[in-house]
């Protein structure tokens, strides 16, 4: 069978992957630089009997997909910085009510309207802490279209396994760049389907009573079990409760189900780490320049390695600590003011050996930007 090769934008690769993962329902609102995802799915979804709706704003889009998810659909929305800000309250709802959904944020320069057509990675901490209250979240990213495809499918899988919103943090560079990738054959990437309850009709179903393995089997709205879903703290029936024991246990459950599985949730790629003296840590489009720099310096005999993170949250602390343990210095390459650098500093044994190579002016970070920092660290001057 011939390969299905495409040469498209990253946004289109993301949309293709969502369809591969079994997307049934999409709601979105136009915003640069994510609109191609919405446009692609407006065209493709009805062809397979799926549902697409352009809502009146971004928070309505997230609300609509949460509603659709409760009927058993695999759902997604996509937006960019300002729209992601507008979604935050509904994001907290999806966390609290444990609704599987995928939210793509194609990052652009911020704050506010910022730089609509320029790249940035400034929403990393917003993905983690944007919605109010203690919580945990899964946020994934990728640096090239093949990986965008795989990580998008992964986002759908993790949303189902953990009954949680999953944030896909793309950025303008990957989203708008055209690049070759191969659409995997059916079955090539494993798909996780929704875990449905086996409780029979007329038998009490507890929507928020976890199984022994911590998972919560679902029952579709419109099916034989009727239950309540709320953003308030709630008991196993889904009914509001402010009983301190109920509140404590639910909050611990929401946080622990992800934070205690940081290792299983970690997705990353590594290049030349074993014998590296210096290590770059990067992700998303910035990792392309980091990778280029590593290949270039290796060809000149320099022992430089790269850890490319694909799971940003929960932060793979132990893996980062271990990979950084034997190197003299670590340079975090990112297009913000050090959001992941702070997490790396917290993870490693010697935070003083962690440096930042960044750009915050809307320009794509170049290998020369990284080299400038490396030269300073190596004592070779500016």
């Amino acid at each position, binding site marked *: 069978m011939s390969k299905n090769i495409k040469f498209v934008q990253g946004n289109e690769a993301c949309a293709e992957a969502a369809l591969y993962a079994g997307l049934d329902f999409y709601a979105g609102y136009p915003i640069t630089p994510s609109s191609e995802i919405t446009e692609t799915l407006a065209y493709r979804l009805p062809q397979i009997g799926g*549902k697409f709706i352009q809502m009146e704003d971004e928070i*309505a889009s997230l609300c*609509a997909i949460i509603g*659709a998810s409760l*009927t058993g659909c695999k759902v997604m929305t996509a937006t960019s910085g300002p729209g992601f800000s507008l979604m935050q309250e509904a994001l907290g709802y999806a966390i609290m009510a444990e609704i599987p959904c995928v939210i793509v944020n194609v990052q652009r320069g911020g704050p506010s309207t910022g730089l609509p057509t320029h790249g940035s990675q400034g929403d990393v901490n917003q993905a983690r802490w944007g919605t109010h209250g203690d919580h945990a979240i899964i946020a994934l990213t990728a640096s090239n279209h093949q990986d965008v495809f795989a990580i998008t499918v992964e986002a759908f899988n993790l949303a189902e396994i953990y009954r949680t919103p999953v944030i896909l943090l793309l950025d303008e560079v990957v989203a708008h760049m055209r690049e070759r990738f191969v659409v995997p054959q059916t079955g090539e990437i494993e798909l996780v389907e929704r875990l449905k309850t086996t409780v029979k009709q007329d038998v009490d179903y507890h929507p928020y009573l976890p199984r022994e393995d911590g998972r919560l089997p679902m029952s579709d709205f419109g099916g034989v079990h009727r239950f309540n879903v709320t953003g308030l703290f709630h008991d196993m029936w889904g009914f509001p409760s402010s009983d301190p024991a109920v509140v404590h246990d639910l909050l611990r459950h929401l946080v622990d189900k992800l934070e205690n599985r940081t290792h299983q949730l970690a997705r990353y790629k590594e290049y030349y780490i074993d014998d590296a003296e210096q290590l770059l840590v990067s992700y998303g489009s910035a990792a392309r320049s980091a990778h280029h720099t590593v290949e270039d310096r290796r060809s000149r005999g320099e022992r430089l390695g790269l850890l490319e993170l694909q799971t940003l949250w929960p932060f793979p602390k132990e893996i980062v600590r271990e990979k950084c343990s034997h190197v003299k210095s670590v340079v975090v390459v990112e297009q913000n003011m050090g959001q992941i650098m702070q997490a790396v500093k917290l993870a490693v044994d010697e935070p003083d050996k962690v440096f930042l190579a960044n750009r915050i002016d809307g320009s794509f970070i170049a290998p020369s930007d990284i080299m400038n920092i490396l030269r300073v660290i190596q004592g070779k001057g500016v």
Partner: protein
Amino acid sequence: MAIKDYLRERFFPHLWCPGCGHGTVLNGLLGAIEKLGLSKNEIVMVSGIGCSSRITGYVDFHTLHTIHGRALAFATGVKMARPELNLIVPMGDGDALAIGGNHFIHAARRNIDITAIVMNNRIYGMTGGQYSPLSGENVSATTAPYLTIDPGFDVVELAKAAGATFVARTTTYHIQQMKDIIRQAILHEGFSVVEILSQCPTYFGRKNKAGDAVDMIQHFKKNTTSIGSKAKQENPDLLERGIFVQKERPEYCSEYDKVVQKAMKGR
């Protein structure tokens, strides 16, 4: 099925104050559903935040208690995904028309088959008596110690202008009319808006010296009249009750089915 069979008695007592009109709305709503003979599994009730929105907890349907103002957006997702389900969205006046105003007009514009019930007590009760976009002028509220200067929306006119294809108004005094209107609203294919004037003796009543719950219900009786009645001609200040709009227009989910057919042909 008796009305009590639609209730989740496990979750009683409810949190509404003595004299609150929302329990009467719950009764009217369940009365309408009972008359229609709908099965509990085919009803999804979606609400936002506020006193009114707690209604979802007490009914034995598929219930979704969401965030402030966004109930119609959640309901739109449920309805699009499963058009065969009956969507009922009870909202308070602030929930529906302040924070939720945008979703309200767009749901009406789409004519998606959802029954929106605005439980209008002209005040934010749960947060302690602040004025709402339906309070109107010269109302006393905890955020209007010198009385309101904001004109109120007319829910009926707003819903009509936005494109709702079923628009009605009733009150907690007129329980039989309420049941009948809600029944017709649920049957109607398209976006239905039912405004129900409901009393909040705790905040609106106290702040505005409107008396107790009985006085407030009496006020609904005295100050409203049937659409186009002789009384209205004689006293134009009376507020009209009844069905203002009941018309056919393509329903959103049915129209989307046509989009799917078109897209599938084009493959």
